[in-house]
């Protein structure tokens, strides 16, 4: 018996009918990264195979990252605003021009060009995105010594990924020691080191950037409220409020007993405010290393300016799977629930969590 993919061999599609859309090196890199992660994971866990739970986060927990629109050096790095998305994948891609700080800065030294793209400071941390063009292959990541300093102080981390032939993108996070209203940033890269074991020479050069930043109009509010129902607990960690959207980060923990009875347990949240507005989410993603704990991040449309309370209703779905995806060699690739499944499913609603919005 032929499967549908074999039948497709006999269909002649009218290719002209389809329109290509513009994709960038970043888009390609992002898709590749996600795909390679998927095909390399033997025990792929297909939780929440629903369209609202969009693709899994790339495996980073960061609460206040924003995709910024970008104007400087646009011809060289076409869609630089996507760097944040590349690392964060949180769907906050809408218009952030009002809080964006495009930094015009290129330093070319010793065959390596460093371009600072965007920076944002939210009162707690500074995030700087950059692009590095090298003159050779230097591994899948780069090691960079020298962190952007806030008022000449700071500790932080770099994260760098190769996205194209000799092109890397990076994100530096520096934690602020005080909550400044504006900061002077000074970033000197001491050296860059290849990721290849065969290439261990520190490359030094004159890459130096300094710029001024105002605190962005973003509020990160800690919540830490906890509810438990039937062996399932949910903890609302924090909410990040920006001018055009807000994001709630939360965790769920499931008891082992529940997982004896059910294949899947998910906690989703519904959000409204004290004025009766219900908020629609355009992005929901989550990840976890086991079946017990999952960390979720859900992004909603802009918060109404007059709202003073958020009303969060956690909703639990317990379900059993009845669908199986087989690999071509016959092993099981993933299990999930069929559409219109008759397998057992149970939905529970938790008590509301009410959050006073700090203004």
């Amino acid at each position, binding site marked *: 018996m032929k499967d549908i993919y074999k039948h497709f061999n*006999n269909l*002649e*599609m009218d*290719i002209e009918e389809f329109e290509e859309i513009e994709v960038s090196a970043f888009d390609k890199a992002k898709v*590749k990264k996600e795909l390679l992660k998927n095909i390399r994971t033997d025990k792929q866990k297909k939780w929440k195979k629903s369209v609202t739970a969009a693709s899994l986060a790339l495996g980073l927990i960061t609460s206040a990252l924003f995709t910024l629109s970008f104007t400087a050096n646009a011809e060289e790095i076409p869609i630089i605003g996507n760097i944040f998305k590349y690392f964060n994948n949180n769907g906050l891609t809408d218009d952030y021009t009002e809080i964006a700080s495009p930094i015009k800065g290129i330093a070319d030294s010793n065959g390596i060009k460093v371009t600072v793209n965007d920076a944002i400071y939210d009162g707690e941390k500074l995030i700087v995105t950059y692009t590095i063009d090298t003159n050779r292959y230097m591994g899948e990541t780069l090691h960079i010594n020298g962190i952007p300093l806030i008022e000449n102080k700071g500790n932080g981390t770099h994260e760098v990924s190769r996205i194209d032939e000799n092109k890397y993108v990076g994100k530096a996070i520096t934690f602020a020691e005080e909550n400044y209203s504006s900061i002077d940033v000074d970033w000197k890269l001491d050296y860059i080191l290849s990721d290849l074991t065969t290439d261990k020479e520190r490359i030094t050069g004159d890459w130096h950037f300094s710029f001024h930043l105002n605190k962005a109009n973003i509020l990160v509010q800690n919540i830490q409220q906890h509810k438990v129902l039937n062996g399932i607990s949910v903890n609302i960690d924090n909410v990040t409020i920006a001018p055009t959207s807000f994001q709630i980060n939360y965790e769920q923990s499931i008891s082992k007993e529940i997982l004896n009875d059910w294949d899947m347990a998910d906690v989703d949240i519904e959000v409204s405010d004290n004025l009766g507005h219900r908020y629609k989410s355009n992005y929901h993603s989550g990840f976890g290393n086991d079946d017990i704990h999952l960390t979720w991040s859900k992004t909603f449309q802009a918060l109404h300016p007059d709202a003073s309370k958020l009303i969060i209703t956690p909703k639990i779905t317990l379900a059993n799977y009845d669908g199986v995806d087989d690999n*071509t060699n016959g092993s099981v690739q993933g299990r999930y629930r*069929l559409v219109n499944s008759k397998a057992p499913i149970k939905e529970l609603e938790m008590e509301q969590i009410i959050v006073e919005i700090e203004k």
Partner: protein
Amino acid sequence: MKSNATNFIKRLQSGKEDALEYIVDNYLALIKGIAYKVLSPFKNEGMVDECVNDIFLSIWHHAKDFDGDSAKFKSWICSIAKFKAIDYYRKAAKNNEVLSDYLEPTPSNSVEKDLLQNENRSELMQLISQLEPIDQQIFIRKFFLGEHSEDIARTLGKTKASIDNRIYRCKKKLKVHASHFLTGGSVV
């Protein structure tokens, strides 16, 4: 060795990751265009991304089912893209209760609807294999790829009436077989 225009299909079929990267480099614009066009009514970028990811994974997992050269390969992946995008569309439309050009209202108890909802589809494929080749093609285009009868007629150089007629007869034929499965409780 790296994948290039002449060897990427072979490398893909033997499970080489660089072949997957090659097809992303060369076909992402096309695949994403197809997914975007079908799913744009939902205005959900995350959904398009997830669907695109799913399309490439299907290409990867079913590479061995492909038979042909690179020109045929392009047509093959377009079929998969359309198939997956329509699948996402149907599920999302169900959740969101949105009607659109891509969904023709069908009676709630229609046989193809029952069958299509079975994600495994193996029984359906078995049923389809009992149709004549031309009808197989029409059926797949209509129900898996969401093509309208007019478009199928144009592609196959037939009249719309004859396509509709064939679809009607296919459904009737399938219904006889399917009811056998349905009473056995194994299909949906």
